[in-house]
C-alpha cells in the first residue's frame, strides 16, 4: 500500500496532537487547572489515528473514559476540548460533560463514556441508523481489554452479528484494566477469539504500528460499508501513563514504563518508518511538531482564560421540552 505525503502528515499531526495534548493535560491537572477524574491516552495514538483515518465526519465513533485521543483523531476541535476538560462555558459540551463525557456529534463523536461498556450498544444503534437509512456509513466502538468482560459489550457483539450491522469493535488491549492485568481478567486471554466466537471476522494487530491498524481497519470498514456486517480488531498497545492522572501504578513492575516508552513508542515507529521509506523528511515532521505545540499552547491559554458556566446553565439542556 502506498501513502500520500498529505495522508501521512495528517496521520502524524493527529498522533502528535494527542501526545502533546495528553502530556499537557497531565501538567495542567497537576497544576490544579483541570478538575475531576482524567484518563489520558498517550502511547495509544496509532490506534486512534489508524482507525479514524478510515472514517469521515458522518461515520460514528463511540469512545470510553479514555476518550481524548479518539476525539482528536475524529477531528474534534482541540481548543474546545481543552476548554471542556477544564469545565469552561465555551467547551465542546458547555463544560457540562468534562473529560469522561466529552462528545461532538457533528464530528461523529458520540461521546466518551464513564461507564465501561456503555458505548458499544450505542454504536450498534448508530450502525442501525446507517443500515436502515442506507447511508453507507459505519460505526466504530473503542473498547479496552477490561471492557471486553462487561456484559453489555458481549450483548452488543452478538446483536451486531444478528442484525449484520456495519460496526467495527476495536479492542485496545493495553494489558490493564485499572490495576488488574488483562491476562487475569480475560478468561481466555484472547479477546479477538472471544469476538470471533460471536460470528464475526476478528483480527489481532500491533497497535503501535499505525500502518497495521490502518490497513486492518480499512478492510473491516470496507466490508461494513458493503453490507458485510461487523468485525472486531484487537490491538496490543502500551498505556504510557497511569490509569488516571495521579495513579501511583504500584501494580507495574519498577522501570516497566521507562523501558516501554523507549521501546514501544508508536510515534517513533511512525517517524522511523516514514523517514526510512523516504516518504517524508524529518524536517516535515519537525515542523508539524512545532505547529502542534503552538496549538496546544493556545488551547491552554484560551482554556484558562475562558469563564466557568453561569449558574443559570445548571437547569438547561436537560430536556428538549418539559
Amino acid at each position: 500500500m502506498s501513502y500520500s505525503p498529505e495522508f501521512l502528515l495528517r496521520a502524524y499531526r493527529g498522533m502528535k496532537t494527542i501526545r502533546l495534548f495528553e502530556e499537557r493535560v497531565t501538567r495542567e491537572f497537576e497544576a490544579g487547572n483541570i478538575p475531576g477524574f482524567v484518563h489520558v491516552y498517550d502511547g495509544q495514538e496509532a490506534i486512534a489515528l489508524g482507525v479514524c483515518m478510515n472514517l469521515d465526519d458522518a461515520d460514528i465513533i463511540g469512545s470510553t473514559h479514555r476518550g481524548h485521543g479518539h476525539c482528536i483523531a475524529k477531528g474534534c476541535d482541540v481548543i474546545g476540548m481543552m476548554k471542556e476538560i477544564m469545565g469552561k462555558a465555551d467547551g465542546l459540551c458547555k463544560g457540562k460533560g468534562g473529560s469522561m463525557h466529552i462528545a461532538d456529534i457533528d464530528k461523529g463523536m458520540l461521546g466518551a463514556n464513564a461507564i465501561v461498556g456503555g458505548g458499544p450498544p450505542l454504536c450498534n444503534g448508530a450502525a442501525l441508523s446507517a443500515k436502515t437509512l442506507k447511508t453507507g456509513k459505519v460505526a466504530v466502538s473503542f473498547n479496552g481489554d477490561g471492557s471486553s468482560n462487561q456484559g453489555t459489550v458481549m450483548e452488543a457483539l452478538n446483536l451486531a452479528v444478528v442484525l449484520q450491522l456495519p460496526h467495527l469493535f476495536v479492542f485496545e488491549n493495553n494489558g490493564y484494566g485499572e490495576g488488574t492485568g488483562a491476562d487475569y481478567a480475560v478468561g481466555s486471554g484472547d479477546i479477538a477469539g472471544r469476538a470471533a466466537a460471536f460470528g464475526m471476522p476478528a483480527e489481532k494487530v500491533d497497535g503501535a504500528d499505525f500502518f497495521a491498524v490502518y490497513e486492518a481497519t480499512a478492510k473491516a470498514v470496507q466490508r461494513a460499508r458493503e453490507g458485510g456486517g461487523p468485525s472486531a480488531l484487537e490491538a496490543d498497545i502500551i498505556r504510557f501513563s497511569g490509569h488516571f492522572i495521579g495513579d501511583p501504578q504500584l501494580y507495574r513492575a519498577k522501570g516497566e514504563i521507562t523501558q516501554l516508552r523507549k521501546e514501544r513508542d508508536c510515534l517513533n515507529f511512525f517517524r522511523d518508518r516514514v523517514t526510512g521509506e523516504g516518504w517524508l523528511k524529518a524536517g516535515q515532521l519537525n515542523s508539524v511538531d512545532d505547529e502542534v505545540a503552538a496549538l496546544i499552547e493556545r488551547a491552554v491559554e484560551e482554556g484558562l482564560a475562558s469563564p466557568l458556566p453561569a449558574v443559570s446553565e445548571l437547569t438547561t439542556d436537560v430536556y428538549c421540552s418539559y
Partner: protein
Amino acid sequence: MNQPQKAVNVVDQATSSVKTFREAINEALHQEMERDPTVIVLGEEVSGGAGCSGEDDAYGGVFGVTKGLMPKFGRERVIDTPISESAIIGAAAGAANTGLRPVAELMFFDFIGVCFDQIFNQAAKFRYMFGGKAKTPMVIRATVGAGMRAGAQHSNMLHPVVVHIAGLKVVMPSNAYDAKGLMISAIRDDDPVIFLEHKCLYDAKCEVPDAPYAIPFGEAAFPRQGSDATVVAISAMVPKAIAVADKLAKEGIHIDVIDPRTVSPLDDEAILESVELSGRLVIVDEANDRCGMAADISSIVAERAFGALRAPIRKVTPPHTPVPFAPSLEDAYIPSEARIEQAVRDVLGA
C-alpha cells in the same frame, strides 16, 4: 368507558370506534410508522418467528400490541432481537442520536434491571452531558403491574425508579383513548420517553378516534369531577378510582378523580388546584410508598397546598413487599376499590 375531559387537538371525532387499549396503541404505532419512515420498532418477539420454519409475525409482541407491523413495514423496521435488553435499549438510544425514532419494547418493565444503565446513564443524560447538542427521540414501551399471577419478577410497577431520573419522561395511560394520543406524542417527542402499559388494561375499551391525535404531556385528565375530595390515581388504579367516585356520587359525595396521564412531567398545578378546593387528598398508586409516586405527590401537595389541607393526605398503596404469586396474596397486595373508598371516607370524616 371514561372520556378524559382535558383531551386536546383531537382530529375529527366524527370517525371513531370502540377500541381496546391494545388496539389503540397498535393503531398509533401503525399511523406513526406510516407518517414517518424514521420510526422503527425493536425488541423481543415484536414480530416473532425470526429464524423459524413457521409463520412470521407469530406473536406481534407477547401481548399482541405490535401485531401486523412487520407484515406492513418489513423486518428492516420491525426488528426481532436476541434476549439482550442492554443491547436493545442501547441500539435504540444510539439510533435515536443518529436519525431514527426507535420504539423499543421491554416485554416486562421488570427487566430494567438488565438494561438500566442504558436508560438512566446513557439515554437520559446525553443531552445534558453533551451541552444540549444531542437529541434522543426514543420510546421505551414496557408492561407493568400486578394482577396476572405473574409473580415477583413480572408484576412490578417501578415507575418511581424512572420518575426519579432527570432526562426521562414517564407516561402511564389509564385508558385506550389516552393510550393512543400519548403514544403518538411519545413518538413525536424529542426526549427519551418511558411508556408504561398496565397488563390489566389491555382489554379495556373506550371510544377512540380513528385519525391520529396527540395528547400533550403534563396535562392531567379529570375523568370525574367534584369538590368534596380529590383522588389522584395512576394507570390501572384510575378505573378503580372512577368506580369508587360513581358509587359515592349516588350518596351525593362528589370527588375529583385526577389521572395525571404522565407522571414526568407531572401536572402538579391540576392537583394543587383541586386540593385548594377540596382540602382533602387521596393518592392511589400500585407502587409501594417508600420513595414512591404517592409519596412524591403527597409531598408536593403537603408543601404547596399546606394551608388548604383540611385532613391528612391518605395514600392507598401496596405494602413494602415483593409481589406475591398466590392469588389470595396478590389480591390483597393490589389496592382495592374497598380500600380506596375507605380512604376517601376517612379524609371526609377527618
